[in-house]
């Protein structure tokens, strides 16, 4: 028993050393503001979730390149698709400078759907770190030729092609609604099948659905293996991985859709703390480690500090439109 305790405490030392604690080194510019003690990065879901991965990836890059001179702990506060963490930021951390939250699209959609009382306006936007683009794909042996062909078929009969994605209001679903809604289709007539995360790939490979929308990262390997045929991507430009695949926009539908990942602070976060984190994240995205991690997770470069608040307002309008077209405000 004593032995077991010793080896697990060794493992724990590993956690402490690698994950959380960055040994403070002597710093030159002492006038610059920096957080005093331990800083918390909150993630509104458990370890291994998208938010958690984003936070830990950023932290990994910061650690590797010694961007920070103080310890950071990633704190998981799961629940309510992130709504619990947001509520904690608003209610318990108002005006603080030592806690920030990693977030993405649900910050916007939860507020619009009414499942969270707080939205981006209740928080202090810090940075947009990266973006995820989506891919419209069909099985390799499908007779759907290209994206235009898919749209033409749906226009003739919206139920002729079954389309898979995530369940609403998650990102893959929103991407599909943006793309097909942007093509002028009535999205409420589509035969859209919602799946949990990765299961949609299996459904498409098994021929249970005829088309699917998912992140570029999740579908990339199946395209490379020749099991899926990519039709179009939703980013502003073609994907580095799929130079031969046109964007939705090139294919005649004027839509660009991305899920963003970023950090927000509590309401009333001090200005110097905001400036501090914007600068630190700015340094982080220039590191080689971050570049590598971005490539690994298929996150597009989308860093934005100033203007992040304007972007969120724009995103809020876009999502409101998408959700309205899908019928959120009907009968409520």
């Amino acid at each position: 028993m004593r032995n077991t305790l010793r080896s697990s405490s060794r493992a724990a030392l590993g956690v402490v050393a690698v994950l959380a604690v960055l040994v403070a080194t002597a710093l030159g510019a002492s006038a610059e503001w920096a957080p005093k003690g331990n800083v918390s990065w909150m993630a509104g879901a458990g370890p291994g979730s998208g938010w958690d991965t984003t936070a830990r990836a950023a932290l990994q890059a910061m650690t590797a390149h010694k961007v920070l001179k103080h310890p950071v702990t990633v704190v998981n506060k799961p629940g309510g698709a992130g709504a619990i963490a947001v509520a904690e930021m608003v209610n318990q951390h108002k005006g603080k400078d030592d806690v920030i939250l990693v977030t993405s699209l649900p910050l916007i959609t939860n507020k619009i759907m009414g499942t969270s009382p707080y939205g981006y306006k209740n928080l202090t936007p810090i940075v947009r770190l990266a973006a995820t683009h989506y891919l419209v794909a069909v099985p390799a042996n499908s007779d759907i030729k290209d994206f235009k062909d898919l749209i033409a078929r749906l226009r003739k009969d919206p139920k002729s092609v079954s389309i898979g994605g995530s369940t609403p209001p998650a990102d893959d679903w929103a991407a599909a609604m943006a793309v097909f809604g942007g093509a002028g289709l009535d999205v409420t007539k589509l035969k859209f099948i919602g799946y949990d995360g990765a299961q949609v790939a299996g459904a498409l490979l098994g021929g249970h659905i005829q088309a699917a929308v998912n992140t570029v990262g999740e579908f990339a390997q199946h395209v490379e293996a020749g099991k899926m045929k990519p039709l179009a991507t939703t980013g502003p430009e073609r994907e580095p991985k799929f130079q031969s695949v046109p964007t939705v926009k090139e294919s005649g539908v004027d839509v660009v859709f991305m899920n963003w990942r970023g950090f927000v602070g509590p309401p009333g976060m001090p200005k110097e703390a905001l400036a501090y984190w914007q600068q630190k994240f700015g340094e982080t995205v220039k590191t080689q480690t971050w570049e590598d991690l971005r490539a690994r997770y298929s996150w597009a470069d989308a860093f934005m500090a100033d203007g992040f608040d304007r972007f969120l307002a724009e995103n809020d309008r876009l999502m409101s439109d998408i959700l309205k077209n899908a019928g959120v405000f009907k009968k409520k």
Partner: protein
Amino acid sequence: MTDFFANLVTGFGIAVTPMNLVYAFIGCLVGTLIGVLPGIGSVTTVALLIPITFGMNPTSGLILMAGVYYGAMYGGSTTSILANIPGESSAVVTTLDGHPMAKQGRAGAALATAAIGSFVAGTIATAGLMFLAPSLASVAIRFGPAEYFSLMLLGLTAVSALGGRSVVKSLISMCLGLLLGTVGLDMGGFPRFNFGVVELYEGVDFIIPAIGLFAFGEALDQAAVVRRKQMTHFEFKGRAWLTREEFRKSTAPWLRGSVLGFLVGVLPGAGATIASFFSYALERRMSRHPEEFGKGAIEGVAGPEAANNASVGGAMVPLLTLGIPGSGTTAILLGAFMMFGLQPGPLLFQKNPDVIWALIASMYIGNVMLLVLNLPLIRLFVKLIDVRPAVLVAAVLVLSTVGVYATNGRTFDLWLALGFGVLGYLARRADFPPAPLILALVLERSMEDNFRRATTLSDGSLTIFVSRPISAAILVLCVLSLFSPYLQSWFLSRRSARGEPAIGRS
């Protein structure tokens, strides 16, 4: 075939370095110890380890994590048996006969059959993964919404084997579980039945009713008699090993559980829980003494424990060959692969054969280590709980509370668990079995979602469930499973009427 062995030898060559053996050992040890703690299931354990493996080479990191996964799956059985605390949904069935065994002084035997069963299952499942992965993966993707719905329905028929002397009460327990399963975010986009409570937005985590009904219920039950009976100790002591008879009785359930668990584990989204419940139902049906189930039948521990460990190997099949995680834990493992720059999926076997074969080799090694490690630990665990009943009840309540709180870090869940505790105690007094509730809660979402997907695909027609051959076959199994007790007794009576020996002698 020679290819397999050449690859496997290479794999062992990579896995069997002193350092990797140490990692496999640490993984199994840490996994077992953490798995023993309720509320810290295999998902959390593996997730917690991800940061530690940042700097390691991929092979060592994956070896460590595979060890932890195995260890945690096995460790979950310990608290189920000793304290009636199911720390994972797959360990719920283990309480049904494991804890009664402990109360009869056979805790050692229950733990031993779980440990050996896990070893047998892990080894068989690893072999299955090695030989059958590509072909099974192509079968797995033929499971569409209709097949999954039928499979979940088959899972639900296991309720009939989950004890309770009154069918009506078992069914009510099941319906309450289904009702709880509908709470939370619906696939249509809105939360259901959460009454504006944000803590219920994602539904009720199974751990809350599981700990409330089983652990709190059991503790209240003990509290109700401890003083009156002037108890000075529980009859937990006894041998830390199996009798010859117990070993003989366990053998067939280990093997059946392994095969069943592996096959169910291959299907993404089915997983360890269904595997363990299936195995329990199967063992009860096969048994010549079904009336002993629920009162300490060793087959009721051996089968499900083998099944839930074998499902780990099964779950690796879609993960490695398709990149599709079939369970919470494999989803975390997918993240770990990505972190090491490996992409599980159709290209993994071509791009990184060395890592895969080393992983498979390490799974064999991990299984042996788990067995060597745990047999001595059993003695320790059995001793550990031989304290005064009052102290044990208090400690069990504390551990259960930690398990509930640690899952989401909020006292809301504790209040909810307390409510389930009261309900569990009352239900026990009134002969309502709690296990059907947990099974139904775990199955509801997948069953309903797949039903809705299937009917949407078929434009509302129900024929999709019988026109697809796999789905139809599963539905036939459902019917057989419901009526098998009657068929069996009919056969038995006919045989004995003709003077033949009864079937089922193994």
